[in-house]
């Protein structure tokens, strides 16, 4: 087990190097590095000073060395648009994105798994058929279109919920959270639902497929033959068995929900990291792009590692082979 964790950490470090190299090539070596660091309309002296300061006149690999040094020290340079250190900018926006992502994924899982298990347990019943219809729709309809429909019905027609923006927030430990105020929650509801629909559909499909396969095994027949109730079989045998594949998907989907937040935040103008990256792409604010990519990659790799460890914890067969 320990050797496994060490192996994964090793790989994580290697991958971060690879990504940093790709980002370096993509952003610096290809484009003119100067434009990356300083705004185009700056005087010539400052341009020359910066070139020397950041060693752009050095050979490429030296520049890469400097680039890595700065990455390690968290200095991603300053954003053109907001003229503040990029790291601080991103970290200030992260909580907003995390809020709706966590709410979406939690909602998708807590709703999706039971519905999926029921659809797998009684596939022929009409309720299961509707669940599957909803899941195919949820799985197929692009997130941005659902966002529009949600705004159109709840905000425009019914006027019950705000069409966008974050509403007021409370700051705890210097971090702005909106889910603690009713107004904040009202603002959070639609984006979270929008983000959750695709994930819930996915969870329903997986839970259904897993449950259906397990229900046909001798194990369930044997459990029934010992007089265990359907509820015990579902909650302790089936759930425990399908939890293993679901955990992997939960981890991967958490990452992809975070990425999909880009779309939702654009529609609901939710001031999260997603909106930041979209704006920075359109304004070619490259330092923000670099920082976003590096931080997000780090996040995905940690999620990947956590998922693998939980995967092994859940499945005793994968633990060190003990021969009795």
């Amino acid at each position, binding site marked *: 087990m320990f050797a496994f964790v060490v192996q994964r950490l090793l790989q994580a470090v290697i991958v971060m190097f690879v990504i940093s190299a790709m980002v370096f090539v993509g952003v610096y070596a290809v484009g003119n590095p100067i434009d990356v660091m300083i705004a185009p309309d700056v005087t010539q002296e400052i341009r020359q000073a910066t070139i020397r300061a950041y060693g752009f006149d050095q050979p490429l690999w030296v520049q890469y060395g400097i680039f890595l040094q700065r990455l390690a020290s968290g200095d991603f340079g300053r954003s053109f648009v907001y003229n503040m250190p990029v790291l601080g900018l991103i970290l200030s926006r992260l909580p907003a994105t995390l809020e709706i992502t966590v709410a979406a994924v939690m909602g998708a899982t807590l709703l999706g798994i039971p519905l999926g298990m029921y659809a797998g347990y009684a596939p022929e019943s009409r309720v299961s058929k509707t669940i599957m219809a909803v899941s195919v729709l949820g799985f197929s309809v692009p997130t941005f279109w659902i966002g529009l429909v949600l705004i159109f019905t709840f905000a425009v027609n019914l006027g019950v919920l705000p069409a966008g923006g974050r509403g007021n927030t409370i700051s705890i430990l210097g971090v702005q959270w909106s889910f603690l105020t009713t107004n904040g929650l009202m603002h959070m509801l639609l984006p979270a639902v929008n983000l959750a629909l695709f994930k819930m559909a996915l969870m329903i499909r997986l839970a259904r497929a897993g449950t259906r396969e397990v229900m046909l095994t001798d194990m369930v*027949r044997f459990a029934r033959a010992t*007089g265990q109730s359907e509820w015990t079989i579902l909650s302790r045998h089936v759930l425990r068995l399908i939890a293993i594949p679901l955990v992997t998907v939960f981890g991967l989907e958490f990452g992809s929900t975070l990425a999909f937040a880009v779309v939702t935040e654009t529609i609901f103008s939710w001031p999260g990291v997603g909106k930041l990256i979209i704006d920075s792409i359109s304004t070619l604010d490259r330092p923000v792009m670099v920082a976003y990519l590096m931080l997000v990659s780090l996040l995905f790799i940690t999620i990947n590692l956590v998922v693998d460890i939980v995967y092994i914890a859940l499945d005793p067969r994968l633990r060190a082979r003990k021969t*009795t």
Partner: protein
Amino acid sequence: MNPVLLRVRDLKAEFVTRAGVARAVDGVSFDVHAGEIVGLVGESGCGKSVTGYSILGLIDAPGRIAGGSVQLDGQELIGMPHQQLRALRGRRIAMVFQDPMSTLNPVLTVSAQMNMAIQSHRRCEAAQMRQHALSALAKVGIPDPERRLMAYPHELSGGMRQRVAIAIAFLHQPALVICDEPTTALDVSIQAQILVEMKTLVREAGISLIWISHDLATVSVLASRLLVMYAGRLIEEGPTEEVLRRPRHPYTQGLIDSLPSRAKPGQDLVQIPGSAPPLGELPLGCAFRDRCQFASSVCFTAPAQTVDHQRSWRCHHPLNVGGPVRLADAGQ
């Protein structure tokens, strides 16, 4: 003969498939007396397992019970409300399945699974449950039960896993245990151990067994009575030794004669030509008609069950009614 524990009368079960309705069990009737071991024998696809599952109402869709009655101590099980039937499963009737690999939950420890089986019929504290589980494991000959209790199924050998399943089945001293090919997936030496253990276990507790298998030799080690099935019907029944020595139905005789141990080595075995008809397309009358060398025009009508003392058969041309005639000699 002890009182009748289980009465099965005209049991019918069928499967609705894309190709139409296939009658897997076509009117099977038999009794099981208290403390008796009955062998239910037949080749694959003859409906023996479905018969076993139907008794406990364990057929999954698309299968369903299409008729007949199953009575345990006079209590009708077919159509019994689910809660009541569930109260019987494990407490009055238990089951053991063929593949020990897929019977136990691979991600739960043996003790977790035994506790769940105990709790479905008895409310008791953890300590009592642990004691109950340990004694159950010891009874089926598992060495060092403490360590095995905490093990996961994949850490046990095939034989050990099957013993755990048997221990679970015997947890509540059921009156009847239905075993579906319990030793088929095991090696010869492990099978022998389990056969002997089952024999003593059942005799001591006076539990009756229905032993389902395709292997005549293994079943006849334990069973005092044999029931032979073919294409969903019970075609022969009787005390083991009599059925083996002087079978009435040509199919039973053919089954016995095609066993290698019955012929001189190197000599061609007596073989039953063709293969069993698929359940969806059963021929008219006697299903064995196309493969039977004694078949005649009367076999186009389904033979009724002839009963003679403890024996019964369904055949228009029964064998060995007179002296001990063996098929091989009668044929040439």
